[in-house]
Every structure is written in structure tokens, then in C-alpha cells.
């Protein structure tokens, strides 16, 4: 699990890409360019990247309403995603899905998901396929601190243990489900312990620190890959924006957002670590930043110019084959 320079650069580039994708999406939504409901992942990038750096295209992930980061980290095409947010027929989902349904099954991305805790049961199925085929693959589901209270999430955890499938349940605790704090919505005092009580090990991580998530994820994924059944990752993290774009965030403490951006920024933390270890220079990271900014800028230019869907596309792709009738 040692990370060489290439790995480190790739991880940093991923996190930066997610950050800039989200910040730009935020701007464009405020500009009225992007329709629908959009939930930004800014601030949580280390979680997605720390997990997905362990995965190949044959491993599966299933995400949440806050899905951009997970999808990018798992290899979704960034320009295609931007076009999807724009609702273009050239988008990753041909403009049918939008922010909440970004997906690319060929890359093992079983989709963002608009239903809270819609994903965990499906991840058990993907993990079951891996178990039956004995191919050493894993399936990851992402949940938030609010999502874990949905019945489907509990069912999935228990079923994964019963079937001993290589499913990894990642819980990103950003302390809020919409406007409600975890201290209210999760009745017990210790969510990690409640999760472990289902019968699998849960590895803790600092979600603002790529290296911490990477390490915890490594243990959980190794556990699952080696046939020992499901595992979990529990990461404390923070989102830098509101629940959705436009959220007035009345639930925050004064100074909370500033503090998060100041002290819990995975990009800053990564740079500090590199400065400490000397593995990558600031200039090299600056160069990555510049490249990422260019990619995002170009993806917006392309998204704006991309083809718009036409009415006859409404009824395409409901089925693979609906027969002669109807």
C-alpha cells in the first residue's frame, strides 16, 4: 500500500479535479446555467479519492445524491459529467440523469442516487456477483450520517454479513443530513459502534486527510477482497457548501464554515504533508492545479456548446427491447 510519486500526483489531481468541478458547478448554478437539484461534494474530496485509489474499473461503487466526487474519483469522464449537468444529449447519461444520477457502469460506477440509502442494497448485489464469480472484486457503497438511519441501509449491512460478500460500507459523517445534526438524527452515541454491531469491522479515518482515508480504506477493502466478508470505513468530514446550492445554512455555528475551509481542507493538508516529506514540490502541485483548472474550464466551454437533446429522445432507453407492442 505504499504510494509512489505517480500515485500521489494522481490522488492530488483527483481531489483537485473534484474541488474545481464542484466550485465551478456552484458558480454556474448561481449563474442559472445548471438546472435541477445539485449537492456539492466540496470539502469531502479526500474520502472519495482515498477509497477509489484502491479500486479498478471492475470494482463497483454506488454513490449518493452527493455523487460528483465519488464518480470522478472512480474515473467518470469529467467533460461528460459537466455536459450531463448541463443536460446535454452528449452528457454521460445523455441528459437523462443529471447531477443525481451520474453513472458509468462500464467504469464500475453504478450511479449517484437520488434516494437516500438507495445504494447499499444494490452494492450488496454487486458484491454478491463478485463472490459468486470468485473474482476478487469488491463493491463499495457510500452513505452519509443521515443515510445510515434508513432501513435499507441496515438491511444491506446485515445481508452482506449473512452472505459474506465483499461489500464495503463507507460512511461519510459530515455531521449534517440536510439541516439536521447527527447528534439528533442518530439516536445512539456512537454510530461507528452501532455499525460494527452488525458484525463487521469498521475502520476510522480523518476525512480531511487523504492518507488517513487511504489507509483505513486499504484495510477495509483488503478485508473484503480476501473473502472475509464486508467491512466499513467511518470518516469524519465536512462539507464546505450548503446541503444543496442555495441552502441558507442556518444550522451552522458562527465561523464554522471558515474553520472548515481553514483547518479541514484536504488539499491544504495534502500540500502540507508534501512540504513536510518533500515527495512533491509546491511547483509540481501548482502545475497540476493549472492543468486541472484548464480541464474544468474547457469542460464548461464544451458543455455550453454541446448538443441539446431533442423531444424524440424522451422515450429512448427506457428498455433495451420493449417488443413489437405498445
Amino acid at each position: 500500500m505504499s504510494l509512489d510519486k505517480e500515485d500521489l500526483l494522481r490522488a492530488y489531481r483527483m481531489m483537485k479535479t473534484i474541488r474545481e468541478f464542484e466550485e465551478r458547478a456552484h458558480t454556474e448554478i448561481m449563474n442559472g446555467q445548471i438546472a435541477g437539484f445539485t449537492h456539492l461534494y466540496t470539502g469531502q474530496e479526500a474520502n472519495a479519492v482515498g477509497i477509489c485509489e484502491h479500486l479498478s474499473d471492475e470494482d463497483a461503487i454506488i454513490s449518493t445524491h452527493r455523487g460528483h466526487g465519488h464518480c470522478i474519483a472512480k474515473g467518470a469522464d469529467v467533460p461528460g459529467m459537466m455536459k450531463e449537468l448541463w443536460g446535454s444529449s452528449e452528457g454521460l447519461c445523455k441528459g437523462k440523469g443529471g447531477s443525481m444520477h451520474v453513472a458509468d457502469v462500464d467504469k464500475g460506477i453504478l450511479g449517484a442516487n437520488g434516494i437516500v440509502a438507495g445504494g447499499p442494497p444494490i452494492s450488496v448485489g454487486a458484491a454478491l456477483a463478485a463472490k459468486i464469480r470468485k473474482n476478487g472484486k469488491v463493491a463499495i457503497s457510500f452513505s452519509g450520517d443521515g443515510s445510515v438511519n434508513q432501513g435499507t441501509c441496515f438491511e444491506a449491512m446485515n445481508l452482506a454479513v449473512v452472505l459474506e460478500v465483499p461489500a464495503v460500507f463507507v460512511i461519510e459523517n459530515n455531521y449534517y443530513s440536510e439541516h439536521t445534526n447527527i447528534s439528533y438524527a442518530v439516536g445512539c452515541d456512537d454510530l461507528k459502534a452501532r455499525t460494527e454491531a452488525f458484525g463487521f469491522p469498521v475502520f476510522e479515518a480523518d476525512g480531511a486527510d487523504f492518507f488517513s482515508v487511504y489507509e483505513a480504506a486499504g484495510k477495509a477493502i483488503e478485508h473484503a477482497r480476501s473473502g472475509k466478508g464486508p467491512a466499513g470505513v467511518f470518516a469524519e468530514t465536512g462539507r464546505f457548501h450548503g446541503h444543496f446550492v442555495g441552502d441558507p445554512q442556518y444550522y451552522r455555528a458562527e465561523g464554522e464554515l471558515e474553520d472548515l475551509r481553514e483547518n479541514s481542507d484536504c488539499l491544504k493538508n495534502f500540500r502540507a504533508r508534501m512540504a513536510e516529506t518533500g515527495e512533491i514540490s509546491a511547483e509540481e502541485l501548482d502545475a497540476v492545479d493549472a492543468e486541472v483548472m484548464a480541464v474544468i474550464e474547457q469542460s464548461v466551454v464544451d458543455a455550453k456548446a454541446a448538443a441539446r437533446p431533442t423531444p424524440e429522445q424522451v422515450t429512448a432507453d427506457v428498455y433495451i427491447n420493449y417488443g413489437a407492442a405498445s
Partner: protein
Amino acid sequence: MAEKTMRDAINEALHQAMAADDSVFVIGEDVAGCNGAPGETGTVGGVFGVTSGLYQAFGPDRCIDTPISESAIVGAASGAALMGMRPVAEIMFADFIGVCMDQIVNQMGKFRYMFGGKSRCPAVIRFAAGGGFSAAGQHSQSMYQVMTSFPGLKVVIPSNAYDAKGLMLQAIQDDDPVLFFEPKVLYQEACEVPDEMYTIPFGEASFLREGDDCTVVAFGQMVPKAAQAIDALEAEGISCDLIDPRTSSPLDTNAILESVEATGRLVVVDEAPPRCGLTADIAALAADKAFSSLKGPIKQVCAPHSPTPFSPELEASYIPDSSKIIAAIKGTMA
């Protein structure tokens, strides 16, 4: 009397009902808001703002935030209702019926029948319903047509602020379980709404236009679009009845049949996909009970058989508009 939006009209109904009867309470995700958080509790009032101010007015015991657990929310409402309370639960988006259908359909909706008539469950469950927000496949469904098929439930779909207030007050005082579907694109639409309390009985359609050539029945956000279509046709000398049933269960079948008997033609409009929906339900009613009056084919205007697409253009052609309604009205005369 003042102009009020549908959101404010429903909010006012909740305030008044809670003030009048202390067995009424609201429960749901962020209906108060900010619970457990550093910020001030109660500052949200539901993601669409429909429950705003209730926490401040009635306190934490009567404006109750919950975890994301829709089955438990519905159960909490129905269980409290069985014990004599009059809860109004919010299930944010109607699509989320998927995760709590059993509690609605097999529990709340069937208690009274299965228990031999010996229970009452006066719970109201509210939903934001329908398309128009580019919210894609899992946040745009109307669902009321599906719920209409389940005996034991009453199903309400207001199309304007005035009706919304009166129907909500009726829903709360009704002794049966009521599902209340609020077309979310109409939240900001305003009309004159009395300040005092009033109720609109269930099963009584409202007549919004009167005409001779065709009966148009429309639900929810399709009602204003149907009105638009009918008004446009006036110039061509075509006049139509426009009926908004307001509740799909019970359904004011008499009003519909009487109109069809007079006009001889029927168009039914809803934003849901076509299969086993309300447009078919009402078309079939007329094809049986008003058959001898019919002068032309009964037309249904609805979404195609596909999930709701995200892209604004796609959604615009997915949800029926007045041009499709006009074509259908003409289609009954072809």
C-alpha cells in the same frame, strides 16, 4: 382576503388547525430544522417551507423533526392517529413513497377494514409531487395515481392555493387517512385565499370553465394548463367544461358523467405516465357509464411511458402542455 401562494395557504391551514386542536402535530424531516445543530432550531420549516413557523408557534412536541426514516415517519403518524392524535406527516417528495409504501398502503390504509371497522386513523401524509423542476427520475413523480388504486386511502391533489387551504383543513379534520399531494411547481402560484378557516369537502369537483363541446378533466398542475388550452380554443369557437376533481379518491364521478353526458366528449389530463393512471381510470368510467352520450373517442393526455428525464428540454416535452391538450380536444371531434 389577500393573495397567497399555495405554500402560504397550506402553511396557514396548518397554523390554524394546530391552534384550534391540540391533537394536531406535524412530523417529518426538517419540518422544524436544525435540530441538534449549532444554529437555531426551527429555522427551516420543511425543505419547501410549508411548515415554517410551526416550531416557533407550537414547540418541539408539535413540530417534530425526524431522521431519514420514511417508514418510521408514516408509522409514527398512523400509530399516533390510532391513539387519537391528528398528525400531519411530511414525506418531502412523493417519490419517497417507494421507501414507505407498506406503512401507507398495507398498514394505515387497511387498519379500519381489517379491524372490522373498529379503529380510526385520522393521519394526513403530505408530499411534494410532480415534475417541472428538472429533478429527474426519482424526484418528479406524481404518485397520486398509484395511491388512488389502494382502497382505504383518500387522495387529494390541490391545483390552487384556495383549494389547498380548504382541502388541507378538511384533510386534518377527516377521520380517515388522507394522502395530500402538493404539485411542487404550484407552491409559488398565488390566488385569493380567505384568512379564516374553511373546508372543501372531498369528492366534490370544482368547475373552472363551462362549455358545450367537450369535457376536460385535469389534475394538479395540469389544471392551469388545461384552462390555458380551453381559453385558447375559444377563439376557434370551441367551448369546454373544465373539471378539477380535487380528490381522486373519492372521485366525483357524478360531476364528470353529467358533464360528459352534456358535451358528448371527454379529454382527461394528468402529468403521470399513461399506464393504469387517472386518465385511463376516468376515460374507462365514461366509456362505461356515459357510453350512449359519447360523440367521439375519449382522449388521454399524459406523459409518455418513460421515467422523468432530467434535461429541461426533455422534461418540457415530457410533461403535457396546453398544445397537447388542444390537440386532444380536437381529437375528440375528429
